[in-house]
């Protein structure tokens, strides 16, 4: 296996990545503007670059449609960028996906499982797909699920019978089962009740502290980003418009607006640096 010199230890190196899709206007927008629904090209990602050192939790904040999921899918080796390069621990995600895949895992916004199968049957499949034995999967799954507040009885239930929060906890267990060195958390707490959200967040913090896993977290939850992330990048219109620690970003906005630091929260930072509120959906980039 060949890696870029000097990049062997860098968990994530995103360099000038762009991806263009044909965009489909939202029907509501089309109707409001009295137009016709035409397809046109729009950059889902526009020359995005950033690096994440070992053990860091790097947050990517952006509204719906800002390019977060496109970025995660490129890092997951499921989508090829049009330009630029992504290296994970020195391996190119386009040219060396087989070397990259054992090093990473992912939690998606939707807990994607074979719904009729039990949680344990799902975990067995995904654990085996990462080279684990059945015994290893059972032992580790039971421990991780217990840490997330799910019993062995829950593990035997078909996924269909579990609540959304419980399903997402199983998704978190699945992702950490293979002991990845880089974890991609794509809005892992969206739609969860406050208690489940706190449990997942504290589990993520605990695993990072104990194992030193590097994490890329995409979210539009400002409090979550500030609580969990060492550094944050703001994605807007496919471009990375700002990057820094939560404190650095708040200070930057406090200075530029002349407001006291304690009055500048992350929502104000996002509004100031991107020119939009995070709740505002951006124009959806529709893939084929």
């Amino acid at each position, binding site marked *: *296996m*060949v*890696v*870029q*010199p000097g990049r*062997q230890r860098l968990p994530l190196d995103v360099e000038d990545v762009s991806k263009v*899709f044909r965009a489909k206007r939202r029907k509501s927008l089309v109707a409001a503007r009295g137009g016709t629904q035409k397809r046109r090209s729009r950059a889902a990602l526009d020359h995005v670059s950033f690096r994440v050192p070992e053990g860091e939790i790097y947050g990517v904040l952006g509204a719906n449609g800002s390019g977060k999921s496109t970025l995660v*899918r490129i890092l*997951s*080796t*499921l*989508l*090829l960028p049009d330009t630029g390069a992504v290296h994970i621990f*020195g*391996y190119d995600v386009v040219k060396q996906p*087989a*070397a990259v*895949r*054992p*090093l*990473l895992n*992912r939690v*998606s916004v*939707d807990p*994607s*499982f*074979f*719904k*009729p*199968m039990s949680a344990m*049957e799902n975990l*067995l*499949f*995904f654990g*085996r*797909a*990462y*080279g684990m*034995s059945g015994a290893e999967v059972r032992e580790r799954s039971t421990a991780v699920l217990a840490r997330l507040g799910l019993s062995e009885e829950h593990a035997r239930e*078909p996924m269909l019978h579990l609540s959304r929060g419980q399903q997402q906890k199983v998704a978190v267990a*699945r992702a950490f089962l293979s*002991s990845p060195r880089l974890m991609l958390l794509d809005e892992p707490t969206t739609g969860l009740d406050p208690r489940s959200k706190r449990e997942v967040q504290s589990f993520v913090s605990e695993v990072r502290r104990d194992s030193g896993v590097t994490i890329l977290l995409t979210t539009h939850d400002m409090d979550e980003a500030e609580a969990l992330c060492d550094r944050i990048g703001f994605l807007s219109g496919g471009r990375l418009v700002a990057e820094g620690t939560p404190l650095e970003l708040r200070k930057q906005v406090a200075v530029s607006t002349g407001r006291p630091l304690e009055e500048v929260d992350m929502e104000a930072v996002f509004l100031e640096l991107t020119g939009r509120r995070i709740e505002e959906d951006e124009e959806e980039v529709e*893939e*084929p």
Partner: protein
Amino acid sequence: MTTVAVTRSRPPRRVALGWAFFERQTNLWKRYWAWELVWLLYGVVNTLSITFIANEAAVSGVLSKREVSRLTMFLLIGTLVWAYLSAVLDDMSLTIMWERWEGTIEHTLMAPVPRVIHLVGMSAFGVLHAIIRTSLILAFSLPFFHVQLAGADWVTALAVVFVGSLSVIGLGIMAGILPLLYPERGEQMSFMVQALVLLVSGVYYSVDVLPGWLQAASHVSPATYLLRGIRDALLNGSTVSHEGSTLGVLAIFGAVLVPVSLMTFAAAERWAKKTGRLKRQG
């Protein structure tokens, strides 16, 4: 450039990786047992409906008793082989579709499993699943008919099924590519492929009755040779040495179709990655 080894906790275990897919499909099969019953019932009814045509020929006096027995076997073999083929093709064409429905496609395709191992695991399940279903259809259908199996050469028939299954797997992988390329219509397109194979391969009639241009098409369907070999073995007691040419053709089909289908799947997957089609549906 520097060369470094990838750090892994254990060496890759290819059989275990393939087993992951076999085990998963088995678990899904158990959970969808009611659907399996429906397909089994459909298979039995389909077999009986078509094979009773031979009884009609007997009642109307069109054929002699010996000819009726032969037609019964001819139709029975056709329906059973088609049940087998369509079960394998269905399972393989669901390789991608099922993952889209359940929303697991991204998690499965980003797992560190070589695609060849993934497809081998799916194929192994598909073949075993098809064998079990077809055997049950045979067991339920056989009591309805008086068939002469005394002269049948079962070893040759099994050899034809074994060698022919490789080309069926190749066809199945090809059918699985369509939902990869066309998320919305791929499954319907794979049904069209099945329909064409059904038409030209002589499942319920000899290919000799087809118009010339369809007879030409029958030569490029491995199912034609699979059916011919099994019928020769079971109806005429043909031995392995007599069926050498049929087995040879099936082996060539398998040797060509399996690698070509794997290469085509890899090319289709790359294209799907470029255009953003590797994602859940809905």
